[in-house]
């Protein structure tokens, strides 16, 4: 530690290493989807209600009973994307689509930092070459952050 404080270059190197380590730690604690690939509910609602905007393919990647009780109108269900079968269904659904297709994935099963269903499909879609994918940022759950806000919903299988 004495060396650290005596040598400015070593100190800066230590700070840079600590900064990198801190960032990695936090990235593993929560969903690793970067902020630039997120879309907030109010932003998505504006797009859906606009006559001008390109409408996204919306895919619910959570659990089916949630989808059946309430989902975003037009959203498709492919199965929990934390499961291999869910990811298979997702890949199958999108494989023929142009890679610049606007796609929004969402879950809303549980608080964002605990949701297991968002990072895998986001990674899968980017791995397949899709360049216009957004993850709907739902901080708490679909009920609190979408339905209770009065945003459009529909029911059914």
């Amino acid at each position, binding site marked *: 530690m004495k060396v650290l404080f005596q040598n400015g270059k070593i100190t*800066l190197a230590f700070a840079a290493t600590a900064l990198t380590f801190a960032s990695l730690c936090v990235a593993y604690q929560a969903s690793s989807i970067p902020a630039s690939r997120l879309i907030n509910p109010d932003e998505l609602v504006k797009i859906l209600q606009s006559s001008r905007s390109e409408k996204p393919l919306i895919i619910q990647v959570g*659990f089916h*009973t949630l989808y059946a009780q309430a989902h975003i109108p037009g959203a498709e269900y492919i199965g929990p994307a934390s499961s291999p079968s869910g990811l298979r269904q997702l890949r199958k659904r999108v494989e023929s689509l142009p890679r610049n297709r606007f796609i929004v994935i969402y879950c809303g099963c549980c608080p964002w930092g605990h949701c297991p269903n968002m990072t895998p499909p986001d990674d899968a879609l980017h791995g397949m070459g899709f360049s216009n994918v957004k993850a709907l940022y739902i901080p708490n759950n679909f009920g609190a952050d979408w339905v209770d806000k009065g945003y459009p919903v529909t029911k059914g299988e």
Partner: protein
Amino acid sequence: MSRRLFVVIGLIVVAAAFYLARRQRIAGSGGEVLQKTSTASPAPEFSLPTLTGEKLDLANYRGKVILLDFWATWCDPCREQIPHFVELQNKYRDQGLQLIGISMDDEPDPVRDFYRQFKMNYPVVMGNAKAGELYGGVLGLPIAFLIGRDGRIYYKHIGAGDLAVVESQIVSLLRQQGRFKDSGASSRTLQ
């Protein structure tokens, strides 16, 4: 002086990194939303299949204090709660507490595996959209309801609950609505 300045700058950079990353991380950290149901409405009855295929009717548990837990095997907060629910069941079974789990998994096989692995000691049924709608919409997990011996809903926990609070509510309901042997257990917090 310049060396000390480097150290100070380095520490500020590290602190700023943690702060900014935490802000980016999350707005909802899963804190509990607790609602005391002021009107204590009757708990909707249901008949759902257990993991062994039999039907479980909520009506058959009238007279018990019921902790009804909507959960799923892949839901981390749910998984964290369940061992504590197992403890609660053991602790208060003789006093009239009955836990019932309603799994919102798409398939029963992972639920059976989970049941065995976690040595669950209360019945689990496979839920569906209708069951969720009966209880006001289960649009996130976990959600738990505390139902009194009179069949009415007294508390609703949205998200992972403070288990000490849950236990105190259970004890309160057990006391209010039936014979409860107070061994001082209610003053201890589940670990």
